[in-house]
């Protein structure tokens, strides 16, 4: 733990010290200009990484936010004669404002639609900056004098230190935010928006905050950009710049502040690389050799497919060959960016820093994930008085999809502290019923009440907040998070610390508490030793247990388990029985959908049987098994002897998954 912290902190301080002291040692305006740009692009890319890395959405608008911020700062100075600090604040505010406005429609969007709306926003911004000549000066450009900072006239050196200071502040604030519950929520949202809502984390709020914040940083960087160049033209903030910015984030490494800094360094150095032919040939040659070595290794070890091994080699080969033949590398710069990006996207999707961090972790033998002692389970999941009476009341619930009556007038009551089984043949409406109860679908008609209060209709998020928590038949884990983070992100009381305090780093105490609590829950389901494993690498059975632990992190009043035994090996089924008994022993009310009849018989106090969306039987497991209507539903119309019952029927029917 200490070693890891010291190394990271040491590296940060070392780089900062070097960057800050360069102007004292070298008196070269060219170098100073590059470093200033490095700091500005660093801020810009950290902002872009929030959407591209953490939210996992392709954001094509960051160049527009840079432009908007630059013009906002420029106009604040030229029109209103403000000083440096108010102008920069205005730039960041304009970034946030437009980011917030765009986030509103973009909130509901995923993937290509999100990319398209940001692309349109960028095109619209360029049009507006060009056409609103009376304000922006249009294509003629805008002269921006560098205003004094609190009465102090900044020369090149002073301005560089200011940029560096802003970068450091942004760096610290974002590292606080991204290592907190907020950062985890951003990532959860990327992996499964449905589960994010079902865990009461809330997709919309987090998406909006992430995007607004990233845009605000874009605006802030724009302000510094304006005062650095002191001349603005709309045609700078266009498609090509956006591609370069994406190149920076992808090549540097997503989901990493260091990656953003490395990416910024690459962006800053690129134009110089392109203008010097010898240097360009050298670098493209090195890139080609690296791709070749990696490709051959990949093929020999069979760790990558032929395309992933060959495509980067071909791309870098083209780049090298082109560098030999073509004299005017400047003219081909778009193709050069394209080939480099292509090679990196295919060959090194984790980016330079992703690769480097893996390498360094091995080199210094850092434990990847130091863990504290888990909390006592009683503190995390206190034993509740079960009491009596009903917890959940469903009355005349219907859900029709066109002509299909998936749920057709279901009335049932779940008693406090019971394990209530829900069974029925495939397609009988069990999963649809719990999907309505948990808020994924809005019912066509009927009432659902928890504690006698009506549940929100058709909102996973608000239902989760009312105290219902669920697992999914088709797993919805946050696959890029570790097992521990999966549980932590769902912990009730998430985001109880206000955002500004999180940015200032004042959420560490809660953070620690959440971590130990989550560990306790992982131990309870038997995943204590897997806490640091990325959840996508867990075997299927463990992922099912992980979903249970995550659902418990909500400390729900009602836990819905949707076929938890589906696809489990027999020893895991036995463990599942233990786990569910343990949870039930703490007074938790559980709805259990299950195909394994032995699991149902051993766990459930009461069983409701559905067929064609209707309740056909209800009672103790053993009674229900002998109910003629139930046997008929499972086996079809034959009037078989009542005795063989459901056990054999269930074994005959393949479990749906």
């Amino acid at each position, binding site marked *: 733990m200490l070693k890891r912290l010291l190394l990271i902190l040491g590296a940060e301080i070392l780089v900062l010290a070097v960057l800050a002291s360069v102007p004292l040692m070298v008196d070269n305006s060219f170098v100073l200009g590059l470093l200033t740009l490095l700091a500005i692009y660093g801020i810009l890319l950290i902002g872009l990484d929030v959407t591209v890395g953490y939210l996992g959405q392709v954001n094509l608008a960051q160049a527009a936010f840079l432009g908007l911020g630059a013009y906002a700062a420029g106009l604040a100075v030229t029109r209103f004669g403000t000083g440096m600090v108010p102008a920069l604040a205005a730039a960041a505010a304009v970034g946030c404002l437009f980011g917030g406005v765009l986030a509103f*429609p973009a909130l509901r969007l995923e*993937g290509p639609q999100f990319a*398209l709306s940001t*692309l349109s*926003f960028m095109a619209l911004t360029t049009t507006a900056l060009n056409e609103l000549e009376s304000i922006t000066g249009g294509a003629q450009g805008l002269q921006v004098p560098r205003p004094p900072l609190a009465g102090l006239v900044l020369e090149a050196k002073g301005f560089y230190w200011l940029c560096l200071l802003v970068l450091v502040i942004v760096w610290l604030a974002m590292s606080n935010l991204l290592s907190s519950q907020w950062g985890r929520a951003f990532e959860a949202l990327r992996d499964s928006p449905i589960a994010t809502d079902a865990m009461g984390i809330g997709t919309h709020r987090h998406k909006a905050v992430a995007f607004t914040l990233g845009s605000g940083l874009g605006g802030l960087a724009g302000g510094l950009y304006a005062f650095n160049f002191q001349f603005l033209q709309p045609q700078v903030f266009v498609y090509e710049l956006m591609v370069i910015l994406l190149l920076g984030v*992808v090549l540097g490494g997503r989901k990493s502040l260091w990656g953003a800094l490395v990416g910024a360094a690459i962006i800053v150095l690129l134009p110089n690389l392109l203008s010097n032919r010898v240097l360009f040939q050298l670098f493209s040659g090195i890139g080609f050799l690296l791709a070749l070595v990696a490709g051959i290794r990949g093929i020999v070890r069979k760790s990558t497919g032929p395309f992933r091994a060959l495509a980067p080699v071909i791309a870098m080969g083209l780049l090298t060959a082109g560098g030999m033949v073509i004299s005017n590398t400047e003219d081909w710069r778009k193709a050069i960016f394209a080939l480099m990006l292509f090679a990196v996207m295919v060959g090194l999707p984790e980016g330079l820093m992703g690769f480097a961090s893996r390498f360094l972790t091995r080199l210094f033998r850092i434990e990847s994930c130091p863990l504290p002692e888990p909390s006592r389970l009683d503190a995390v999941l206190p034993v509740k008085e079960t009491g009596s009476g009903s917890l959940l009341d469903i009355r005349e619930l219907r859900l029709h999809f066109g002509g299909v009556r998936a749920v057709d007038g279901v009335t049932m009551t779940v008693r406090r502290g019971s394990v209530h089984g829900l069974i029925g043949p495939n397609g009988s409406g069990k999963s649809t019923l719990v999907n309505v109860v948990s808020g994924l679908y809005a019912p066509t008609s009927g009432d659902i009440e928890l504690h006698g209060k009506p549940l929100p209709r058709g909102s996973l998020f608000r239902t989760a907040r009312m105290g219902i928590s669920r697992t999914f*038949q088709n797993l919805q884990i946050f696959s890029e998070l570790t097992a521990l983070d999966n549980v932590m992100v769902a912990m009730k009381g998430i985001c109880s610390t206000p955002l500004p305090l999180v940015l200032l780093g004042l959420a560490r105490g809660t953070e620690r508490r959440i971590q130990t609590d989550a560990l306790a829950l992982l131990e309870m389901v038997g995943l204590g030793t897997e806490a640091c494993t990325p959840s996508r690498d867990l075997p299927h059975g463990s992922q099912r247990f992980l979903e249970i632990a995550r659902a418990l992190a909500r400390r729900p009043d009602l836990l819905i388990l949707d076929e938890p035994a589906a696809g489990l090996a027999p020893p895991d089924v036995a463990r599942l029985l233990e786990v569910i008994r343990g949870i039930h022993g703490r007074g938790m009310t559980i709805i259990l959908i299950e195909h394994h009849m032995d699991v149902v018989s051993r766990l459930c106090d009461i069983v409701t049987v559905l067929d064609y969306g209707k309740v056909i039987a209800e009672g103790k497991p053993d009674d229900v098994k002998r109910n003629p209507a139930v046997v008929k539903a499972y086996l079809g119309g034959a009037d078989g002897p009542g005795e063989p019952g459901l056990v054999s029927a269930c074994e005959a029917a393949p479990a749906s998954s």
Partner: protein
Amino acid sequence: MNEAVIAQMVASGALMGMVYALVAYGFQLTYATSKSINFGQGELVMVSAFICLTLTNLGLPYWLMVPAGLLCGALLGLFVERAAVRLALEQQSEGWILMTIILGLLFFSAAENIWGRDDRPFPTPIPADPIRVFGISVTPVELSVAIGVLCIMALIELFKRKTLLGRAFEAVAADRDAAELMGISATGTVMLSYGISGMVAALAGILVAPITTVGPTMASALVLKAFSVAVVAGLDSGFGVVVVGLVLGALESLTSYYVGSGWREAPGLVLLILALAVRPAGVFGKAAIRKV
């Protein structure tokens, strides 16, 4: 007088709108099979037009140049699928968005350097003298755009409905997994859709080039509007793109007349953002049910 001007504006704008509809239709084809679209589709339009121009300059007659151009477009489409889309689809990631943007940039840069940055005229045997229909003057070139667009869309729809390969296409669009279980190669069908989409892009290039002239940037505005049309109409409605294309084309020419030519891209962009905010599935699209 004023009404006549407006009618003229609406008519010529709507005819241009048919090109947006055609490019948007190309997005729909690939979206149906793979839920992905080529963000560099505009560059396919442009490169195909340049190739056709070169073929014509080499002495190929117009009616031979057209099929040759379509073939080149299809090949380019297949290349995009292989290089940029397939890996991302296999990994079920959205990497294809960036990858197709990257390929588009590569095509753009190549065209810029091979054919030059200047706009060049595109020869066509169709006469350019305007004819008057109900007091509105239309050039045969503009009419050929509308006819060409409707013909190719009708042909492709017929192909999808009447041939075995077309049924396979529809099957993969409806349910990829089920189609694979029935022995239809989903990868092959995605390839097919990218091939046809590339062909559609090439046709758009051939049809629009006589009007816009040929240059590296000829399609960069076009493709933005095609995005708007596809999204506003819904990514699964072939009928919708024609309607929205006509409306957007008309709206745009009115905007450039009344507000200023610099703003002519604005209505499409605003419509796109609004449509995504209000009705993400599009005006003519079907909203998907969230499944778990």
